[in-house]
């Protein structure tokens, strides 16, 4: 065996198992969903036939789908931007030394540690207009989850609470990798905090920020548990997001074909958003390698 061949082997040996594993197990459901999206599959009506692009044509004209898309986009925009700003602020704070830092770091992560269905149930309990603690503390009687103007925002707040620690953790680890010497040198040169942040921290942190953005966006666009528990998509479908709609189609009305098409559409939506980040991330990685 030549050295080059062995090298090749070990390279793909390193990569192979992971790819095969994910490909093998994750590929099947995805292909199945794609396949179903091209079918008209309604077990109740006894229908199971190929339908080409019929589902997608219907989707383009489906007002409920576009509403769901709008709600999802709004949700993603607001929650991800809030999470990022908050997460960055917290990570920067936690990066500095102060007494009790270790404990503070652990405590800030508590929301992430709570199972999401449980967290959703708890926010439902908190938002209750009658005996919820939020109204009690604020002295108001706002109908948080039942008023179309507030419901989606209530969900966004709960999501921000739950997932900001994820962003904090990623950013904190990223901050750790930035060498202390850079800061020292810059400070010697007379740089102030803002300049340190803008010229050292931000550029070096950019890849991790983009990574956090990517994963948070992917997850926020597919939000399900939270909305389902808090509002069920209501009132009057005003908080229905894409995945909630897909779930109802698939599991409540047994419209397997169209439901799969909506799931695929959700994937395409997430893909489009991700591609934007990926380009930025690719560029950031390239400059980093130099």
């Amino acid at each position, binding site marked *: 065996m030549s050295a080059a061949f062995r090298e090749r082997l*070990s*390279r793909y040996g*390193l*990569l192979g*198992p*992971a*790819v095969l*594993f*994910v*490909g093998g*197990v994750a*590929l099947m*459901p*995805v292909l*199945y969903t794609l396949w179903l999206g091209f079918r008209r599959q309604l077990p109740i009506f006894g229908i199971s036939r190929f339908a080409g692009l019929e589902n997608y044509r219907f989707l383009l004209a489906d007002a409920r789908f576009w509403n769901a898309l709008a709600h999802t986009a709004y949700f993603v925009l607001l929650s991800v931007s809030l999470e990022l700003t908050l997460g960055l602020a917290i990570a920067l*704070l936690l990066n500095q030394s*102060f007494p009790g830092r*270790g*404990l*503070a770091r*652990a*405590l*800030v*992560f*508590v929301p992430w*540690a709570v*199972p*999401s*269905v*449980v967290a959703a*149930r*708890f926010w439902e*309990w*908190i938002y209750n207009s009658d*005996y*919820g*603690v939020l109204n*009690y503390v604020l002295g108001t009687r706002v109908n948080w989850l039942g008023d179309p103007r507030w419901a989606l925002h209530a969900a966004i707040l709960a999501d921000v*609470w739950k997932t900001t620690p994820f962003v904090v*953790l*990623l950013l904190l*680890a990223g901050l*750790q*990798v930035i*060498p202390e010497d850079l800061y020292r040198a810059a400070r010697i040169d007379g740089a102030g905090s803002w300049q340190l942040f803008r010229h050292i921290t931000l550029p070096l942190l950019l*890849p991790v920020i983009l*990574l956090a953005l990517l994963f948070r966006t*992917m997850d926020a666009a*597919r939000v399900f548990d939270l909305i389902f528990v808090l509002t069920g998509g209501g009132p009057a479908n005003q908080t229905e997001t894409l995945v909630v709609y*897909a*779930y109802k189609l698939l*599991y409540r009305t047994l419209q397997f074909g169209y*439901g799969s098409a909506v*799931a695929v559409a959700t*994937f395409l939506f997430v*893909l489009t958003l*991700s591609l934007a980040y990926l380009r930025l991330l*690719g560029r950031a*990685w390239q400059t980093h*390698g130099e």
Partner: protein
Amino acid sequence: MGLMLSFALGPFVWELITALKPEGQLAQLPPLFPARPTAEHFIAVLGAPGFLRVALNSLVVASFTVLLAFVLGVPAAYALAKLNLRGRQVILGTLLCLSMFPAIANVAPLYLLFIRLGVRDSVLAVIVAHSVFALPFALWTLTNFFQEIPDDLYRAGRIDGCSHLGILRHVVLPLAAPGLVSVGLLVFIFSWNEFLYAFTLTATERSRTLPAAIALFAGLHEIPWGEIAAASVLATLPSVLLMLLFQRRIISGLTAGAVKG
């Protein structure tokens, strides 16, 4: 800082308070704090048949998910980060795409697959499902952290005649330790808290995990808020403990060592 902490902890503290309120007072506000806090909900939860088994299942599933994610992900991330492989973008991209599908669409065919393979109602099925969906995230993040490691170190190791595994062990892993710990923590918590697959792929206490068990607390119309609160507090504790234990690792400035070395 204080503001942020209270925001982060507020709902959780409220959860704790609810868990300590006697049954009759659960839906009453005031009082904010129970005059006579009770441990009845915690006792009910811990004493429930199968609770410890479920907790053990959660532990096994989460640990093995992390293990699998690392065993498969670390070498792969190393390869993607340091060895200029053709099709690197394609691989990363495809893996990412696969994990972009809404889980609810994946769960039915995956369940079908597991039924056919005869591993229905087993922790193995849940571990596999969790690993598959944790891997792309782990891979991406690890690749990113490995990229941070200066290429010179890598090249130096190669010149010294180290094999890839050797470099991994001696150079990459120590330097990327903060990233590794972060990823491990996040994957553990993801698996510990994951609900959809855990619920769909399990049928009895033999394989059920905590989130699925908590979902079983409610009756047809009745929702025992007290018990749910207690169970959630209990379910959250291990993750918090892990955080406490490992947060120092994330912090250690091991990069200083890299510059010296």
